[in-house]
């Protein structure tokens, strides 16, 4: 079968910096090409280049052909007709891809009317049809709704509806499910796959997630630093990865840190005991005469963490995990129930005792960019928690301690005088861990500590967590939406849904034999690289026969 869209030797440079080098790929009808790579590898730029939507100052060479037409020679007017009609795109963040002040129906109909030159009424009828194709039938009554009234998954379906409304021949999806919860991701991926098969579109799927690509794509191209290092049919390619980078990426995606050496004594006096905690927020009142409604972000939550234990807390966005983390950390008091750390309630003791408790509990946050004051050096940032120590350390002692922890997280003491912007995302997360370690705490609360990191960096940081656990004997409360991360690092796991704990147990047991229906749904929705590859191989073998 010949390609409907092909790129040959695409090179793009922006302000003299080479972004893409000799990128070539073909898209065929009814097939999905997966483009994988880490951030900065040039995958999004490849998509923009294919759409001829490159940022200002970009210089492009090479050839892009669509149905035999050379797009690099097409002028703006011609491209406008092709974009959206013949080639269209699905973006990562459904909320920003939709216009907040126009209804769903209007937004889908707009493209139809513009490209097909049909009447308002015809467009409206087709819109109903298009929404039905993406699984939003008239029973949802979405035509007159605004984007903010939709759930994240529905929004992404609308974005897909806009993209496929004119029955394009090529669909480019740039991280279409990265911003979505894992259960929603599974639905959207199935939808995209069905559409491609049914409507015989050619699709370019861009993702950082090898498992997603393995599940979806017929052929895969692996990108690094603007170059496609390896490509081929999915099953065959993953069986014989020849390029060292793709091997590294594959290993990192499957990476599990060294398991714990000594068992945890679960009967010991718990380090942290959370009993029946309630946390609620007032909702805005409809009028001053109605009673105020409360949103219960966390309710009836009880669990405990034993010394040296690492406990995972999983759940989808909005389930209350971060609210709970902030309450445990003492940043916001609970509205009911109690928290005991080292046998004391941090909200019931004197200020000085609270400081002592705080010494034993530190945190690592998600965002490696937002967790540092950009104006403070690493030394100043890392030494910050030393304020908690009432016995005043001398300047020298402080500096020594900072250097010590920097070295224990794999940085050098020379890094102490640098500023956060001089470090990469993974290094920053090491600095954040160093800051948490500086007071020698017995518990670290880690709220999505690896979610913003690329997969190879993620593997390194998980190794660091495991290493510190074994070396320093710390307990972790590890909060994440990513089951594979929690599976890799924790002994026990708690599953939360809508502010409540739905299941708790030893990690292996919960994941291999989930009891609660929600846990079962969650576990089955996670894309599994090895499982996907097994299926893919079977299919490729069948095709060959």
């Amino acid at each position: 079968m010949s390609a409907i869209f092909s790129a040959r030797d695409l090179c793009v440079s922006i302000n003299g910096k080479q972004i893409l080098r000799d990128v070539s790929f073909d898209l065929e009808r009814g097939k999905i090409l997966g483009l994988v790579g880490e951030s900065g590898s040039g995958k999004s730029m490849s998509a923009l280049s294919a759409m001829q939507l490159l940022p200002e100052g970009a210089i492009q060479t090479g050839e892009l052909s669509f149905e035999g037409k050379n797009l690099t020679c097409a002028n703006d007017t011609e491209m406008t007709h092709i974009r959206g009609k013949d080639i269209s795109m699905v973006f990562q963040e459904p909320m920003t891809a939709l216009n907040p002040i126009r209804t769903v129906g209007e937004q889908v109909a707009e493209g139809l009317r513009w490209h097909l030159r049909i009447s308002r009424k015809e467009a409206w009828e087709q819109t109903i049809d298009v929404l039905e194709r993406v699984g939003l039938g008239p029973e949802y009554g979405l035509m007159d709704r605004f984007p903010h009234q939709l759930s994240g998954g529905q929004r992404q379906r609308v974005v897909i509806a806009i993209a496929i409304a004119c029955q394009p021949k090529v669909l480019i999806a740039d991280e279409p499910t990265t911003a979505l919860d894992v259960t929603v991701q599974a639905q959207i991926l199935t939808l995209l796959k069905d559409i491609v098969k049914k409507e015989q579109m050619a699709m370019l799927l861009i993702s950082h997630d090898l498992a997603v690509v393995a599940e979806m794509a017929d052929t895969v191209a692996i990108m690094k630093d603007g170059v496609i290092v390896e490509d081929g049919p999915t099953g065959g390619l993953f069986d014989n990865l020849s390029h060292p980078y793709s091997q590294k990426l594959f290993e990192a995606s499957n990476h599990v840190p060294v398991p714990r050496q000594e068992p945890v004594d679960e009967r010991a006096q718990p380090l942290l005991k959370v009993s029946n905690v309630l946390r609620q927020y007032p909702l805005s009142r409809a009028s001053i005469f109605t009673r105020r409604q409360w949103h219960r972000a966390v309710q009836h939550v009880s669990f405990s963490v034993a010394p040296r234990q690492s406990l995972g807390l999983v759940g989808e966005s909005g389930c209350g995990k971060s609210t709970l983390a902030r309450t445990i950390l003492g940043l916001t008091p609970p509205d009911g129930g109690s928290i005991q750390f080292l046998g004391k309630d941090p909200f019931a003791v004197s200020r000085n005792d609270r400081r002592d408790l705080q010494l034993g509990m530190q945190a690592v946050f998600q965002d490696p960019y937002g967790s540092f004051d950009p104006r403070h050096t690493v030394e100043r940032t890392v030494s910050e928690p030393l304020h908690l120590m009432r016995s005043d350390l001398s300047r020298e002692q402080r500096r020594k301690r900072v250097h010590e922890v920097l070295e224990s997280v794999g940085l050098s003491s020379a890094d102490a005088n640098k500023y956060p912007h001089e470090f990469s995302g993974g290094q920053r997360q090491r600095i954040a861990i160093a800051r948490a370690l500086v007071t020698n705490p017995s518990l670290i609360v880690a709220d999505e500590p690896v979610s913003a990191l690329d997969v190879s960096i993620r593997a390194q940081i998980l190794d660091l967590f495991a290493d510190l656990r074994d070396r320093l004997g710390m307990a972790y409360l590890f909060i994440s939406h990513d089951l594979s991360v929690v599976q890799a690092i924790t002994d026990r796991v708690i599953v939360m849904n809508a502010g409540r704990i739905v299941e708790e147990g030893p990690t292996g047991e919960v994941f291999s034999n989930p009891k609660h229906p929600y846990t079962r749904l969650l576990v089955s929705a996670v894309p599994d690289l090895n499982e996907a590859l097994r299926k893919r191989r079977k299919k490729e073998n069948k095709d060959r026969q």
Partner: protein
Amino acid sequence: MNQELPSYPPPAKYDAISIWRKALRSRSFVIGAVLALFVLIAGVTSIFWTPYAIDVLDVSQRLQPMSSQYWFGTDQYGRDILSMLMAGARTSIIVALIAVGMGMLIGVPLGLLAAAQRGLLEEMVMRTNDLIFAFPSLLSAVLITSIFGPGTINAVIAIGIFNIPVFARVARGGALALSGREFLLAARLSGKSTFLITVEHVIPNIANLLIVQASIQLSLAILAEAGLSYLGLGTQPPMASWGRMLYEAQTMVAFAPQLALYPGFAIIFSVLGFNLLGDGLRDLLDPKMRRRVT
């Protein structure tokens, strides 16, 4: 969520040389800085030296045209206009600096307090701000100076009061925008008090906003001082003031229009200068607007 974060702004560089280079490329910054510096130098020089004394009337020399002796000529009382303009620059700058300084010193702590405490205190501070904002500022300045008597000090106070809410709002807004950032949470976990966090983390991070606002407020204060003096409520003779010069030139406009034009241009240039300086600084310092510079 599991998002890569490639859309973050490039890491801010606080290295003095690169900012300076960018500054010299920004047209509004350069023009603004030159104009502002010019006014500043004229004002400072006038403290030590003016070509002629400004409080000596010499009727024999009145309404002289431009000459090598009197660069800009003399007014109807025989005073040298260049000397008057220089002394006027001094008055304008002193009034503006003190009034804006007063607004900053009172407004910024109030705004930060409102952001840190929230609740009732915040409501009180911000609603009082709204109340002051609701009055046309020049009109109320007229009210204040006419009650407490005309004079430079009362003009400073009247202008200063209207700078308080401006800075309170900017400070509160900046602090609230920072409040969700994880480094502030981390600082709280480090056991720092709200006061210490405000001083060490919040103020340095909103300093950009405050500097930009201050330079814009300076231009407005110069304008306000000129307005009050024009109405006879600001600076009193024998001190020189651009507004006062305009007022005195009013009766002579028909046959000596240059008397009104000189102080008029002085006001325009200085207001324009500080305004452009503020715009230029905003482009340079405010990360949200940074893209416009390059």
